[in-house]
């Protein structure tokens, strides 16, 4: 799972994070995390609230500047802290455009229609022709099951629909990796399934994904690797079947026991 920070861009994993540290003032949100994600792999981060899993996604996307450590996405390797090399301005924007992010609160642009939301990235950031962007946008809305909603505004959508638009908006940029930050946590229970179904399809299509979630049985279904995080560190990691069904770390066990219903369901299914 961990990666050598000198790994060659072609040979190593798609995403490599080494010794990542993020402090907010006195608070140590992430305390030395390393992980690697191969092309087409789905890695799921689980753990109690405040364990640092969302912060890791935000650091990979550089929505937060890491305090120290190394992050590599594709061939772009960045180091932080003393003597580090971060990105600014246009190069930072270009880096972010290669990574898709879906947020807990959807964050659709309320002044644009659904189709305009999805076209915004290609047109503004990639300077794509409007017609081509519209075609691409329609295709992606169809993929997430929202054909016919192109001209709706975000406030006319259910939470599940809004989150699927947000996924389409990120996918349309053809990112090298998709980051999902607790994307079903703000949804009514009956709407969770439609969003998970879209993510499941993406995983089957071979999309490289890092997923932060509390949906344990979903994690079991789609994850190649699971990292259990606690107190800003990786407490346990391994294939989904091992970490979720036969955890060795007592903290992982304690955490999973709180999802007893779903964990039992996983065992039955497994």
């Amino acid at each position, binding site marked *: 799972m961990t990666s050598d920070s000198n790994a060659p861009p072609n040979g190593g994993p798609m995403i490599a994070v080494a010794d990542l540290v993020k402090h907010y003032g006195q608070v140590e949100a992430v305390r030395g995390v390393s992980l690697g994600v191969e092309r087409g792999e789905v890695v799921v981060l689980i753990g109690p609230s405040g364990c640092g899993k969302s912060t890791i996604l935000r650091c990979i*996307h550089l*929505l937060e500047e890491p305090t120290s450590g190394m992050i590599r996405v594709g061939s772009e390797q960045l180091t932080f802290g003393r003597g580090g090399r971060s990105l600014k*301005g*246009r190069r930072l*924007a*270009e*880096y*972010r*455009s*290669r*990574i*898709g*992010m879906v*947020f807990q*609160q959807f*964050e*659709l*642009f*309320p*002044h644009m229609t659904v189709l305009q939301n999805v076209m*915004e*990235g290609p047109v*503004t*950031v990639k300077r794509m022709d409007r017609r081509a962007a519209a075609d691409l946008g329609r295709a992606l809305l169809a993929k997430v099951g929202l054909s016919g909603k192109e001209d709706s505004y975000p406030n006319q959508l259910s939470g599940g629909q809004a989150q699927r638009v947000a996924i389409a*908006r*990120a996918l349309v*940029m053809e990112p090298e990796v998709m980051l999902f930050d607790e994307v079903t946590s703000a949804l009514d229970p009956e709407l969770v399934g439609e969003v998970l179904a879209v993510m499941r399809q993406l995983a089957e299509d071979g999309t490289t994904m890092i997923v932060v979630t509390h949906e344990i049985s979903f994690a079991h279904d789609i994850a190649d690797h699971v990292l259990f995080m606690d107190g800003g560190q990786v407490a346990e990691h391994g294939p989904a079947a091992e970490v979720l069904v036969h955890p060795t770390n007592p903290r992982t066990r304690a955490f999973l026991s709180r999802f007893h219903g779903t964990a039992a369901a996983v065992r039955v299914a497994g």
Partner: protein
Amino acid sequence: MHYHWDLSMVLADPSRWWSAVGVTLLYSFATVAVGIVIGAVCGLALLSRRRWVTLPLEAYVEVFRCTPLLVQIVWFYYALPILLNFSLPAWLAAGLGLTLYMGAFCTEIFRAGVISIGRGQWQAGRALGMTQIQLMRRIVLPQAVRRMVPPLVNQSITQLKNTALLYVVAVPDLMYTGSIVTAETYRPLEVYTSVAAMYFIMLYPMTLLAKRLEVRVDQ
């Protein structure tokens, strides 16, 4: 009361009143327009993290918000020429005060409008790979401007009323013309009632507009 109401003397010379209304409207439009431009520039600059940018702007806004407009107009007319060593024409001195006053309030309206757009929207734009300028132009400002419209209309209404203060430096606006006509006719009741009515006729449609805009923004 045996007062004999007589408007004929007051309105004997309509062209004078038209010209007074013209001066009032001209000052209102010009100072509102320039004030909004000042507000847009200063309001956006206030978002900077550089203290040497924001500190002078904060000082400007607070000075103009925390001193009476009447004092500002008089200061620009009587005091500034001493500093500059040449006297400003009355129309300019009065216009400067009104414009900078409007600019200070618009600065706050722009700043407040932009920061009212939630962090999540900024992050969603950044996540797509937008530069700061693209983010402002495509995501933040279109939403913020909608929220700024009602306060800007309200401030413009206040500004039109504030032009009455021009009277102290003898700019021939509606209020000043009223005082001249009163001196000539000894008819303050008719004159000032007419003046008030003219302000009302100009502003009432604007308040209706402001209400309609507020309803639209709420939707």
